[in-house]
C-alpha cells in the first residue's frame, strides 16, 4: 500500500520578494519580445549593430523616361517577338495576341477581296 501523503506534490513556497522578482522577469521578457516584434530592432539609433548600408537612391544617376529624351538620343530598343514598348502611363495589361497558325496548304497565295 502506498501512503497517500507521499504522493502529494511538494509545495512551492515563495516569499513576497521572490514573487516580485519572478513577475519583473516575466514582464521584462514580454517587453523585449514585444519591442522586437513591433520593429524597434530596425531602428538604427537604438541598434548600433545594425548595418549602415549607403542609401541606394542617391547613388544612382538621374533617370528619364525614353520619351523624355530627344528622338535622336533614344536608344534603339527591340522587344522580343510578340512584345511591344508601352506608352508611358499605359496600363501594363496588354491584349493577348491572337493565335497564329499556318494557313491551310489549300489556300492559294492570292487575295480574295470582299467586304468584311
Amino acid at each position, binding site marked *: 500500500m502506498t501512503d497517500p501523503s507521499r504522493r502529494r506534490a511538494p509545495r512551492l513556497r515563495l516569499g513576497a520578494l521572490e514573487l516580485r522578482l519572478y513577475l519583473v522577469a516575466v514582464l521584462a521578457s514580454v517587453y523585449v519580445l514585444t519591442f522586437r516584434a513591433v520593429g524597434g530592432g530596425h531602428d538604427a539609433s537604438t541598434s548600433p549593430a545594425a548595418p549602415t548600408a549607403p542609401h541606394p537612391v542617391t547613388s544612382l544617376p538621374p533617370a528619364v523616361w525614353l520619351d523624355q529624351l530627344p528622338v535622336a538620343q533614344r536608344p534603339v530598343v527591340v522587344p522580343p517577338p510578340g512584345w511591344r514598348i508601352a506608352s508611358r502611363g499605359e496600363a501594363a495589361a496588354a*491584349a493577348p495576341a*491572337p493565335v*497564329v497558325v499556318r*494557313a491551310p496548304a489549300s489556300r492559294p497565295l492570292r487575295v480574295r*477581296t470582299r467586304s*468584311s
Partner: protein
Amino acid sequence: MRQFRAMNTEVAVAAPTLDDAAEHELALQIASLFAETERRFSRFLDDSELGRLNRATETVTASRELIALLCRARRHVTDTDGLFDPTIGAALCAAGYDRSFSSGALDRGPSTTPAVRARFADLVIDEQARCVRRPSHVQLDLGGFLKGHTVDRAAALAPATAMIDAGGDAVLRGAGPDGAGWIVEVEDPGDATRVLATLRVRDRAVATSAPNRRRWRAGRDTAHHLIDPRTGLPSTSDLAQVTAVAPTAEHADVLAKVAFLLGAADGARFLADRSGIGGVLVARDGALRVVGDLEVADA
C-alpha cells in the same frame, strides 16, 4: 503563309522570301499589332480609348496615336467632302449595329431610334494639347479605316515582297511570288463562290465595300453597315460592291466606301479622276465596270 483572327476577320500574312521561322515571327508581330490596335480603338470595347472617348461628357486628353488617327481621318473627310466620316457611330447604333458583328446577332424588330446625323467638324480636336471634345450626338467609329490603317502598319514591318490580307483589305508589297504581280480576285457580292474579275497588283493596296456581309434584319427591312453621312441611314446606293486599289489600304478603304455611297455613275467618276487609283464597281444588276489605273488579268 500564316493566319490569325483579329478585328472580327481573318488576317493572312505571307512573305515568300522569308524562311518558315521568320515568316512565323513576322506574323506574331503583326498579330500583336492588330490585337493592340483593336484593344485601344475598337468602339465595341468599353475600356478602349475610343470607348472612353465615346462616353466622355467633357474634354478628354487623348493619346498621341488617337490624335494622329483623328487627324488622318480629318484629311479624308476633307478630301471626300464629308462622304467619309467616322462620326457615324451613333447612326450605326441607331440602325442596329451596336455590338460586334456576327451573323444573326443584330437581327431585331423595326428600328424606333431616329436617324442620327453627325459631322466630323462637330468634333473639337486640339492637336497641340492633345485634347478632344465630343458633342453628345457624336460617336466615333473608326471601323474599316482603322483596319486599313493597321494593315498599312503591318505591311511596314514586312519585307519587300509580302502580302498582308485582312479579310480582303490587303497590302501587296513587291511583284508577288511569280514576279508578275499579286493576284487579287474580286468576289461576286451575290455569290461568294464566284470571282468577277482578277487583277494583278504590285506595291499597292486593295479594299472592298459592300453591304452583303454586315447586314441584319430590322423588322421586315434589312439594314447594313454602310451609313451615308448625308442622311444618317444605311446607304441606298445603286451599287452592290466597290473595290478600290490605292497606294495604301487606309486610302483604298476610304475610296471604296465613298465610291459606294456616290453610286454607279458618280462613284466611277470619283475613282477615275484620281491619279494612281483604280476601281472595280459592281452594280446591283450585276453590271461590272473597271475604272482608273488597274491591270486586269481576267474579267
